[in-house]
């Protein structure tokens, strides 16, 4: 339990177990989270293809699944597995736990996280939860949901421990001169997200534990029969229990969006500044906006959690809160565009993916406005619209941020660079692909409300719906196929590691680029760094257009350009 950072060099453990399984080193753990996310995203994509194929051509027999019963429950189980893998182990794990663990100590000038042993524990709990959620797919639904709930509880605990670690590290382990205003926006995002996670996941844990106790021990926290009778009409409009459970789950999903997006906002802001060679436009406002996203995210969700049961005006207030999220989001957007404005852009793959993120964020955010209006929500759209919306704004946008981060930090992570031309082909294929999948889905959502229309138009709409579905499925197959380009690029870069890598290939300012690539075992072997300036001091007018945070002012003029 007593973990410490005594400053003495970590001896490199010799055995495989010591080096990988029981390593408390933040960089190893960060990479392990990234591997976990990579495995989950690949499986998750295959599952989504299966789902699409099944909904377009229901009669196709799929070899892997032919021995699992072909029932609606199994279809739902595949959806659950796809969602859990993507949400928990990709969107939550990669930007926060993967990149955060690897980079946070490096960016603030610490040699370790505050509690390395806790970090190790939380990683293996995450692995256990991944195992449990995958296993739940193979159980019959009744047992499966118990296993799933237990795994979700373990994930919550792991997320809590990580969040604690991130917060303490950021508060207490910053290097000399790393004042709060000088923190990179990425660190701010990880820090704020950790605080948000600490509040949200403890409540979710309470929910999971009570539900599990209901199912296993027969307690009556969620036994709704009489509870429903006492509720206002709007909550129980459909009058059945699954609706209430569905709502409970969406409450969590609502908060989860912010947990997944906050670190992505940080990453994108960081990358845009670096590749625009300009300071972040209105950096303080960006940090405030991030605080705002966190705070509002917590309110929207806390509101659901605490008040919907009692308040007949709940949907209205929810709608106002959800719409007001547009305010910090608009600030962020303004800052990104302000940073890009009149900049000499360097369109590397990392930059392309960051700009792609902005595009997806705008597109997905616009349909979110419709969904936040509670009166529109039930009247105008069906499930497909919602699926299209949150995949664009949460799933795909966050994935673009993750990919951008991977292209950017790959040298620091592995000591080599991903191939840029191949990366650009991959970017354009994916960018076109995701729009081709999710934009028609919005459309599909609107079309399926055709009972509002006169009979004559309905027949035409139905056939249009069928062809749109096929289009979406074909686009999915192509886009998933295009990811092979990325896997190829990744493996190639991994196996062609050159020993002599320049430490700062992107001419970036933050602290992680002051150490060799890949980052050495003890982070800062030359002694703890001292920080002299803010994180984004790019000077477009000068020949040497950037000032690293760690470089003393008198050394700045001698800096090799």
């Amino acid at each position, binding site marked *: *339990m*007593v*973990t*410490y*950072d*005594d*400053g*003495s060099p970590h001896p490199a453990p010799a055995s495989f177990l010591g080096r990988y399984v029981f390593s408390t080193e933040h960089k190893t753990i960060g990479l392990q989270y990234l591997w976990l996310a990579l495995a989950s995203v690949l499986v998750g994509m295959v599952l989504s293809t299966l789902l699409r194929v099944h909904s377009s051509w229901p009669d196709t027999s799929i070899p892997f699944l032919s021995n699992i019963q072909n029932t609606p429950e199994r279809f739902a189980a595949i959806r659950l597995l796809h969602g859990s893998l993507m949400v928990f182990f990709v969107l939550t794990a990669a930007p926060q736990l993967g990149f955060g663990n690897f980079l946070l100590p490096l960016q603030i000038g*610490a*040699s370790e996280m*505050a509690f390395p042993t806790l970090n190790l524990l939380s990683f293996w709990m995450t692995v256990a939860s991944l195992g449990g959620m995958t296993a739940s797919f193979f159980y019959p639904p009744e047992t499966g949901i118990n296993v799933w709930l237990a795994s979700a509880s373990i994930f919550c605990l792991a997320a*809590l421990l990580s*969040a*604690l670690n991130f917060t*303490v590290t950021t*508060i*207490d*382990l*910053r*290097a*000399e*001169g790393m004042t709060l205003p000088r923190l990179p926006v990425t660190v701010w995002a990880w820090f704020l997200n950790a605080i948000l996670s*600490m*509040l949200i996941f*403890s*409540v979710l844990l*309470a929910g999971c*534990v*009570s539900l599990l*106790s209901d199912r296993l*021990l*027969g*307690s*009556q*926290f969620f*036994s709704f*029969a*009489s*509870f429903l*009778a*006492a509720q206002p009409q709007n909550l129980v409009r459909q009058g059945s229990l699954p609706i209430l459970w569905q709502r409970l789950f969406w409450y969590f999903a609502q908060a989860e969006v912010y947990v997944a997006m906050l670190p992505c906002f940080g990453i994108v802001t960081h990358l845009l500044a670096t590749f625009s060679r300009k300071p972040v436009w209105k950096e303080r406002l960006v940090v405030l906006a991030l605080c705002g996203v966190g705070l509002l995210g917590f309110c929207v969700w806390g509101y659901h*959690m*605490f008040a919907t*049961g009692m308040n007949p005006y709940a949907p209205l207030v929810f709608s106002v809160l959800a719409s007001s999220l547009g305010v910090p989001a608009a600030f962020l957007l303004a800052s990104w565009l302000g940073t890009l404005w009149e900049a000499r852009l360097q369109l590397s793959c990392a930059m392309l993916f960051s700009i792609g993120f902005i595009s997806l964020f705008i597109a997905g955010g616009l349909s979110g406005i419709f969904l936040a209006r509670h009166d529109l929500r039930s009247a105008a759209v069906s499930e497909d619209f919602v699926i299209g919306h949150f995949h664009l704004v949460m799933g795909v946008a966050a994935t673009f941020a993750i990919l951008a981060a991977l292209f950017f930090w790959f040298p620091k992570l592995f000591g080599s660079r991903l191939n840029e031309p191949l990366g650009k082909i991959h970017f354009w294929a994916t960018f076109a692909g995701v729009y081709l999948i999710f934009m028609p889905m919005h459309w599909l959502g609107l079309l399926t409300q055709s009972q509002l229309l006169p009979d004559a138009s309905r027949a035409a709409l139905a056939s249009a719906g069928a062809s749109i579905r096929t289009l979406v499925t074909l686009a999915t197959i192509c886009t998933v196929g295009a990811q092979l380009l990325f896997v190829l690029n990744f493996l190639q870069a991994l196996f062609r590691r050159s020993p002599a890598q320049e430490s700062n290939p992107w001419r970036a300012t933050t602290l992680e680029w002051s150490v060799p690539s890949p980052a050495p075992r003890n982070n*800062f072997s030359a*002694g*703890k*760094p*001292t920080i*002299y*300036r803010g994180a984004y*001091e790019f*000077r477009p*007018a*000068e020949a040497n257009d950037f000032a690293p945070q760690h*470089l*003393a*002012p*008198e*050394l700045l003029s001698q800096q090799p350009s």
Partner: protein
Amino acid sequence: MPGSTATHDIELIIEKKPSNGGGGDLPPVDRDGGGDDGKRPRRSKPSPKRYYTGMALGIVSILMFFMALASAFLVRRGSGDWIPVHIPSLMWINTIVLLASSTTLEMARHRLANGQLRSYRNLWLVTTVLGLLFLVGQVAAWRMLAAQGIYLASNPASSFFYIFTGAHALHLLGGVAALLYVARRNFDQAQVTRTVAAEVTSHYWHFMDALWLFLLAVLYLGK
């Protein structure tokens, strides 16, 4: 813009430390006691600040867990199948035991600060025993309820009663483990001093104490 940052940097140097021209070798002030600069002894103890911060944040997190349950309790209370649970009188005695344990813990901490190690050990032991006594008392109270036919699954009120007291007992068990750990640990080689370990543990313990009073109030007033 570049001009302004330059002045900013100069101000910073004046205010922080004189420059010796070799910025890279500036001995940094040890914020977290890392002692990475090679001039300090290798096994210097890190600054204990992180343990206090960690405990404070952990307490917030645990509080959120119980607040979620408490709010669920308040919402659920309105339903028709709610049969209030009468708090067993033993629990009031348990409460006094727990309050007493907080007092002895505070006395122990005081003795430790004054260097009265022997007296500290005794009081620490008394605290541990009182904590265990509270847990035994809670189990006895559950058995009393069970004897009246009130189980976890009986009705929503009893479900909440058991999860409140049960989750608190589990957290307190962690506290007892921490007390035992601090008592048994040899601090000569450790990275934390005995004082830090004792203080962080006592923060947790006092929080458990206050949390119990809160839960008891919710159960009593909300039945």
